[in-house]
């Protein structure tokens, strides 16, 4: 049985605890990377990471982009939507098609 993890700053994600997801509070820094690595090795099928935190974990996240598991999904935090998550969708379109044909409006 797999579980779902949420990683980010406390203000953005503490609500997910009530829904039964496992939350891990962390700010930027080495700490975040260590926790993220640990999560990817445990049995989490989906890991939600706040866009804000994802910026500092970019390299680590990129490693899992084309692996079957876990799915690492960026979500907007309490500090607002940076558009990073959408950028990732855009990237996979560019990779597959060669140019962006979905977001060109």
């Amino acid at each position, binding site marked *: *049985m*797999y*579980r*779902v993890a949420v990683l980010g700053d406390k*203000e*953005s994600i*503490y*609500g*997910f*605890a*009530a*829904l*039964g*997801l496992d939350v891990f509070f962390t700010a930027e820094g080495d700490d975040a990377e260590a926790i993220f690595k640990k999560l990817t090795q445990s049995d989490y*099928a*989906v890991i*939600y990471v706040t866009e804000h935190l994802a910026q500092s974990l970019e390299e680590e996240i990129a490693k899992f*982009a*084309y692996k*079957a*598991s876990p*799915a690492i*999904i960026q*979500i*907007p*935090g*309490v500090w*607002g*939507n940076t558009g990073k*998550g*959408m950028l*990732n*969708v855009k990237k*996979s*379109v560019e*990779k*597959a*098609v060669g140019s962006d044909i*979905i*977001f060109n409006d």
Partner: protein
Amino acid sequence: MATKQVNPTRMELTRLKKKLATATKGHKLLKDKRDELMRQFLDMVKLNKQLREKVEKAIGGANKNFVLASASMSNETLSAAMLAPKQEVYLEVESRNIMSVDVPKYKINYRTPDKSDMFCYGLAFTSCDLDDAVTSLSQVLPDMLKLAEVEKSCQLMADEIEKTRRRVNALEHVMIPETKASIKYISMKLDENERATQTRLMKVKDMMLKEAHGY
């Protein structure tokens, strides 16, 4: 243009012809695979975009509620309220095969059957904004998991499409033309050899006749 060194023999010719047939067949199959993957990918990525817009908006709304909640309560009360969650979410991961790409499929299981079991705190010391916030967040959860499924599928399919496209291009622009060129080179060489032998025989015949009859 035979870029690769090949032996101009009949055996090599047969081998190359077989190789060309396989390459052409493979090229056609891979091209079909690429086209179908692309079609499915485009549907999937459109869904991904819609879901992401929806989820981001919903999470934004929920976050607003959480900010309101934290404004009207002390930090300690808030932490205490979230300390012991009652609900737990488990995922069953199945995999679905789209054109030989294994994409995940998540099925949500809750620990308790009652979905409204997410209020893990007494209502006396917390503000009603927190209830609203938790409710709004719980409504996003199914969409969030669907988003995870779709987004992962998109990434995996994008990777596969890129690989397939490379293979198609390699076959189309390198392998097939090279093999064709080699086949042409060998058959020309063989024809040339045949003509050479013919001429030599005729020449020898002439010489022998001359010797025998004195023409």
